[in-house]
């Protein structure tokens, strides 16, 4: 097997997970520039605050469901920070924090989870596909879009988020293979949080690691400490640059852990142990970067309180706006099934409209 020469950890044969900051917050590798680290820190803090707020909103009945990414924030915000606005993101249901970090209005991000029928934001405006629930099915979309952009000669990289469990899906396999054959500028980022709802990774695969799966496709694989924002940023930045330069796709496996249940509807105590959680608490991505920045004298009290204020403001605004009942128009359900309405949908729309009018009449 020949391996192509590649920069920083980018090789067909994945090495050990890249780590730049130890769990204690000590530099153990070449770190990104201070302004990058401060930006990552801000994104982490804001992202975590958003996540907490979303969890509270579920308890208050304001969200139908919420898949939290607490503990995985480094994997959510660092890849987004490494992208250009012209690049595209293909998120899963787990990526609310990533989308907020992308700049999308948090209320729009939560539109679907709030019980509305559409994705909330305009994918074209944010170059971000709707959050995808059928596992792995967004992966070929990322490949198609990246290939299309390359055919047009546009400088676009597609970042495709995946969960570890979803790597067992056929679509992920097909997408990796297509991406390799087309040399499409795609970065596949697998957040290996060890669990697919209640099923551990050991029941998904016998591969030495998820990154190793790239070998079979001719896609460079790289492993990274997913709770080290600096490392996740550096690795994705490298992969994005690699794709941008025309070298094709990369498969990144980020080792992380979701500290909360799969969603609010799940009971993680049925399948995970307290010891496992404790171990991961010590590797917290926010505290890790904060410790380093404090020790290095980069994070002053002033910056820190500014960031905290920003996070608080976002949470307050989110709370306020989510407390209003969303206006959902049942008649709009017919509007976008096709670009032009069919006779049959027009008839059903009229029937529903009459039903609504009758209800209103009864209510009077």
């Amino acid at each position, binding site marked *: 097997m020949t391996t192509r020469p590649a920069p920083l950890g980018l090789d067909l044969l994945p090495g050990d997970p890249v780590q730049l900051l130890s769990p204690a917050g000590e530099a153990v590798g070449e770190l990104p520039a201070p302004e990058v680290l401060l930006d990552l820190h801000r994104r982490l803090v804001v992202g975590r605050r958003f996540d907490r707020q979303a969890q509270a909103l579920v308890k208050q009945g304001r969200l139908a469901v919420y898949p939290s990414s607490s503990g995985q924030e480094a994997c959510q915000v660092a890849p987004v920070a490494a992208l250009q606005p012209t690049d595209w993101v293909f998120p899963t249901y787990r990526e609310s924090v990533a989308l907020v970090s992308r700049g999308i209005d948090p209320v729009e991000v939560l539109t679907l989870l709030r019980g509305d*029928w559409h994705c909330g934001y305009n994918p*074209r405006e944010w170059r971000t596909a709707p959050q995808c629930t059928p596992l792995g*099915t967004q992966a*070929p979309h990322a490949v*198609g879009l990246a290939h*299309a952009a390359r055919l047009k000669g546009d400088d676009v990289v597609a970042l495709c988020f995946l969960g570890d469990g979803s790597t067992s899906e056929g679509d992920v396999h097909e997408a990796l293979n297509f991406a390799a*054959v087309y040399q499409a500028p795609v970065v596949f980022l697998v957040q290996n949080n060890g669990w697919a709802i209640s099923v551990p990774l050991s029941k998904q695969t016998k591969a030495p690691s998820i990154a190793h799966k790239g070998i079979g496709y001719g896609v460079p694989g790289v492993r990274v400490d997913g709770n080290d924002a600096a490392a996740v940023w550096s690795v994705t930045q490298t992969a994005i640059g690699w794709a941008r330069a025309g070298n094709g796709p990369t498969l990144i496996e980020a080792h992380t852990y979701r500290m909360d249940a799969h969603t609010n509807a799940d009971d993680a105590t049925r399948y995970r142990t307290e010891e496992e959680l404790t171990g991961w608490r010590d590797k917290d991505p926010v505290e890790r970067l904060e410790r380093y920045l404090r020790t290095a004298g980069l994070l002053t009290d002033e910056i820190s309180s500014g960031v905290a204020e920003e996070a608080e403001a976002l949470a307050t605004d989110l709370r306020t706006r989510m407390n209003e009942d969303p206006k959902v128009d049942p008649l709009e359900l017919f509007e976008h099934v096709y670009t*032009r309405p069919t006779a049959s949908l027009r008839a059903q729309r009229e029937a529903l409209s009459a039903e609504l009018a009758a209800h209103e009449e009864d209510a009077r």
Partner: protein
Amino acid sequence: MATMTMAQALNTALRDAMTEDPTVLVFGEDVGPLGGVFRITDGLTRDFGEERCFDTPLAEAGIVGTAVGMAMYGYKPVVEMQFDAFAYPAFEQITSHVAKLHNRTRGALSLPMVIRVPYGGGIGGVEHHCDSSEAYYAHTPGLRVVTPGTPEDGYRMLRDAIADPDPVVFLEPKRRYWSKGEVDTAAPGPALDSAVVRRQGSSATLIAYGPMVALAMEAAAAAEDEGWDLEVIDLRSLAPFDEQTVADSVRKTGRAVVVHEASTFGGYGAEVVARITEQCFHHLEAPVLRVGGLDIPYPPPKLEEHHLPSVDRILDAVDRLQWEATSG
């Protein structure tokens, strides 16, 4: 005006669309240098280059899934599924994404893509090569599902499908690929979602689509000898369904038979019969009948004639429409 086979008409439609619109791309399995197993894409790679017509890895979900991404970025992909039953791996992409993306994004994104599927039997194909899969697609809101019955419609409907901003499942009746007909590539033709009356008649309506249009025409000609003046409707579009054209005809004739190759149970014909009953009940002189395939997995070549609708079976059904006579 030129005489051509449906295969040539489809090929011409792809060529003309690619010539007029540089965003039209063709891809799938063996569609490149080989020109597709049915030669529908013959010469496209040679004439338009490998970037516009290319072979993909063998993976139908991947083909449709990447087409979604390409359509999101402004291309109009026309993808080929090699055979009806080999489109099933792409089913999730088609039903969960192709059909829904426009709706999920509140209209911000549309998917102008065409999924071409050679379908149906009658060519002596072995298992997995002869399915009539239209009901799966027609049952899925968000998809347009159309099927031409003549070479001219092959040309016109494929052009219209490619130009349509909505995703279209384009079902090609493979047993009619080699049937010849006059094709006027300049004629605008009826709207993509409308049915047409292929033969005027007064005593009963035969409703058919795709591969069964020619058979229905044949049956109508044969029925003349028995004193029946049959009207034949070619549905063309299965979703949406042109209820108006069908209802107008059945209100006039008072009798109808729906013909399709697919297994009868839960087939597309059931929907047509239900709609006719709802719309034309007071005009009906007899129950609306279906002539469809048997409710069995598609049989082997030597036995397929027993499965498929035939002129005789259609004529038998027409005879049974003399409800008053038989029930009296």
